[in-house]
């Protein structure tokens, strides 16, 4: 039984998992959907009440029946590396590939339907609340007056993108940024705006969930850190991440979250305040983990490999087919 990894060639983070799968003798097929229909190919037939499908990638052929798991890591957009790419060909290739893969009994990390839903940050915030995780007061609005009222109630705010996407042409990033007290909120009318109470943090937390296992890492905030620098991804601080225990209340909440989100992998971002409370910021369903493993030595790649290597379920035990069991 084979592990199928959907990712791009340059994904060296996926390599960290492939190394472990190779060491344990688990067959792997790595396929970038962008390579359809050149370096990758597919075929499936529905005959006499049965389905038989095959995938081919760089000389390796695998049957859909022979898949134990599918890891959706950093797949390219289907059929974009062909000589004459088109939106139509991409849609055709996407429907063929992911439609057939949905027909298999393989376990997913993460299922595309669960992944798509999990990317909605407003949904994340509500699920985190329902899961019992502390969530900073947040407003998403296109009403300037609502923003002004919110700022009056919570004077120390940050702003961040609702989607997590970043504008292109030219490529720009929108880091989580502190909002000055005298800010003019008129431009809130021109796009949904996410405002959130700033948590005065003493550490950033990255909690990686793989199946039932949680691996937490903590990056302490420097005593002389610039209070304007709230987004750890842009911080100049080069302090390393360190392994951390997970508070029981947070562990319970995270279990509930991944169960209800039907995720088998999730990278949770929290900030820790002066009281030691972990405040939920977001959960990236395909968040990077290599940088945490490099700093902490936590066996994240090995844990992912072990999850992927488990036998396929006879039939999916959840709607999205993740087969995830969370105690």
């Amino acid at each position, binding site marked *: 039984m084979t592990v199928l990894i959907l990712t791009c060639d340059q994904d060296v983070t996926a390599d960290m998992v*492939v190394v472990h799968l190779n060491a344990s003798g688990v067959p792997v097929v790595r396929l970038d959907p962008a390579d359809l229909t050149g370096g990758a190919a597919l075929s499936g037939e529905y005959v006499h009440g049965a389905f038989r499908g095959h995938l081919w990638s*760089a*000389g390796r052929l695998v049957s859909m029946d022979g898949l134990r798991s599918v890891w959706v890591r*950093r797949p390219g957009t289907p059929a974009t590396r062909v000589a004459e790419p088109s939106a139509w060909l991409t849609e055709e290739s996407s429907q063929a590939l992911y439609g057939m893969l949905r027909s298999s009994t393989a376990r997913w990390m993460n299922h595309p339907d669960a992944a798509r839903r999990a990317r909605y940050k407003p949904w994340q915030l509500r699920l985190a609340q329902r899961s019992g995780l502390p969530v900073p007061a947040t407003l998403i609005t296109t009403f300037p007056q609502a923003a002004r009222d919110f700022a009056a109630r919570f004077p120390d705010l940050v702003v961040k993108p609702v989607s997590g996407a970043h504008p292109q042409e030219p490529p720009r990033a929108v880091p989580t940024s502190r909002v000055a007290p005298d800010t003019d909120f008129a431009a809130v009318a021109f796009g949904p705006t996410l405002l959130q109470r700033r948590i005065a943090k003493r550490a950033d937390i990255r909690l990686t969930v793989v199946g039932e296992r949680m691996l937490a890492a903590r990056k302490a905030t420097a005593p002389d850190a610039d209070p304007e620098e709230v987004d750890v991804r842009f911080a100049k601080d080069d302090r390393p991440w360190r392994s951390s225990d997970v508070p029981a209340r947070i562990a319970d909440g995270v279990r509930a979250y991944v169960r209800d989100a039907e995720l088998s992998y999730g990278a949770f971002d929290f900030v820790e305040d002066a009281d030691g409370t972990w405040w939920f910021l977001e959960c990236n369903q395909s968040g990077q983990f290599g940088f945490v493993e490099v700093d902490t030595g936590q066996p994240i790649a090995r844990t992912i490999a072990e999850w992927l290597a488990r036998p396929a379920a006879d039939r999916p035990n959840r709607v999205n087919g993740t087969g995830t069991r969370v105690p």
Partner: protein
Amino acid sequence: MQPFALNYARPAAELDVATPYAYDPGLQLNVLFDGRIAATDLALLRELGTTTSTAGSKTHFDD
């Protein structure tokens, strides 16, 4: 007419680092020019930041 959040935008930090490895389709791994597997050189990965959470990706939402 610019949305509020874009008042806080900055140029994306593109990872234009020339990586000292290349993908080997036979191994299904990226291989250093000296033949070693890139993913096993954790010091190199730290230096290059290729496994790091970054903002501003053109192709992926999740960091």
